């Protein structure tokens, strides 16, 4: 009886060890696992509740703008921007027709941020750089040469006679030119 019990113990310990090694073995490369499952899940991955870690940066790899050390990306919650930059120098709001929310415009120095409402929150819709005191993270500002833009950003996703548009993630970054010099820089969220 006693011997039997001991053997039982051995089996159970073996089981536990086996499973533990497995857990630790895969714990090491958890990151790659996540990639594996999400790329596979394509058709229904959205449905099953998967934990998204680091949810605070919704950046989908689109262009971002950095102002006074704060990186702002399109469709970011305006509250987080306000928390970092403080109250804007000037603020404008307009009720949209039939109360479908408020379009808001926040001005910080030479940067103008507009938002769009969704539910109870406001999300960054556009960022405009008004003068040459601010520049994009890629060192382009109002007054830069057209060639400097293409040097920094490469070939535009689309272009008109007076503008280059670069599309990345959910952001359209637009440079407007007059006489081969940048006169306008805007980041605009892509609306689907």
């Amino acid at each position, binding site marked *: 009886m006693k011997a039997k019990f001991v053997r039982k113990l051995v089996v159970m310990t073996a089981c536990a060890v086996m499973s533990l090694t497995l857990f630790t073995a895969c714990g090491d490369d958890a990151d790659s696992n996540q990639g594996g499952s999400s790329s596979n899940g394509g058709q229904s991955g959205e449905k099953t509740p998967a934990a998204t870690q680091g949810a605070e940066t919704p950046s989908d790899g689109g262009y971002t703008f950095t102002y006074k050390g704060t990186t702002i990306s399109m469709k970011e919650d305006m509250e987080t921007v306000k928390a970092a930059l403080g109250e804007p120098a000037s603020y404008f709001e307009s009720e949209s*027709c039939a*109360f479908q929310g408020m379009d808001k415009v926040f001005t910080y120095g030479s940067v103008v941020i507009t938002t769009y409402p969704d539910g109870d929150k406001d999300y960054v819709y556009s960022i405009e750089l008004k003068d040459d005191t601010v520049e994009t993270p890629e060192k382009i500002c109002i007054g830069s040469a057209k060639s400097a833009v293409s040097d920094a950003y490469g070939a535009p996703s689309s272009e008109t006679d007076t503008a280059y548009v670069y599309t990345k993630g959910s952001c359209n970054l637009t440079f407007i030119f007059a006489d081969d010099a940048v006169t306008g820089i805007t980041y605009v969220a892509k609306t*689907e």
Partner: protein
Amino acid sequence: MRKKRIISAAVVAVLTVACLYVLQRLVVPKYQRGIVEGSMVEEYYRDESPHEVVFIGDCEVYENFSTIEMWRNYGITSYIRGSAQQLVWQSYYLLEDTLRYETPKVVVFNVLALKYNEPQNEAYNRMSIDGMKWSEAKIDNIKASMTKEESFIDYVFPLLRYHSRWSELTEDDFKHIFSKDLVTHNGYYMRVDTKPQGEFPSPLPLADYTLGEKAMGYLQKMADLCKENGIELVLIKAPTEYPHWYDEWDVQVKAFAEKNGLNYINYIPLQEEIGLDMSKDTYDAGLHLNTQGAEKMADYFGRWLKDNYDLTDYREDEKIAGIWKEKIDFYDEMKEQQFYELNKYGELKSFGANAIEK
């Protein structure tokens, strides 16, 4: 036994359909207070009298032109088939729809909506389309307007769209299952309160100022439809300055009007001539006119219409005048009530944002 079973099935089926119908009427938003913009499109069908002038377009028509004032001053019978953020194709199909009932002499279209070339917002779509009676125009309108997330069947059976409102039903939903009150004055949305215009943010520079192909295509269809029916199409840009109307857009609309032999008037530079004082004549800081402003605008625009088009002064027509008498009474009554609330509370209580049922 078998027969009894079939009868039971039939009875249950009929009851189920009836029940679903009543539930559907119950959950569909009534747009009676607060957000009344959703009632505008369907109210048109309740107006028995003919209209010589029909406005189509977004809030820049239904908040800026007092139909009653145009009647009072010139005997013009007009109706505004406006709705919140009405897109160009929605205006076009509303025009098609209107032509099923009457052929006005003049159709007025506000051009701000040309800036949108894509379906925008489900809520606005519903407010513009749900009120339409079923016709080919409505079907085409739905198809042209749906955003990616919407589906046609939701328009056919609004229960599928609004069922989730079961938990937020208000008193109005029960009260107005089968009948609704008028909320506009021939399509005009009245607001007598004042909030002076401030400074608007400078407009965002655009990469591309070309008005969209779909929008301009529908404008062309609109012009063609009017020509076919012997209707004079008038293009206007209301005198309010925000959202910004870019000069580049203005040039394109001008060119379009010229090409099609239409009148196009941009009223922004004419504010002074109209007599508008944007520190007094707007209720939402310059986006839309209040009734004082809308009456000035109506007077100015009515005179222009009178001078340029062959419109009848229906004030001499007893039958029509009788109908309009009621409209005037309703208008004055509401105005009185709004002023009353304004004086008493300093703001409107049973209109606008404060009246939205929670």
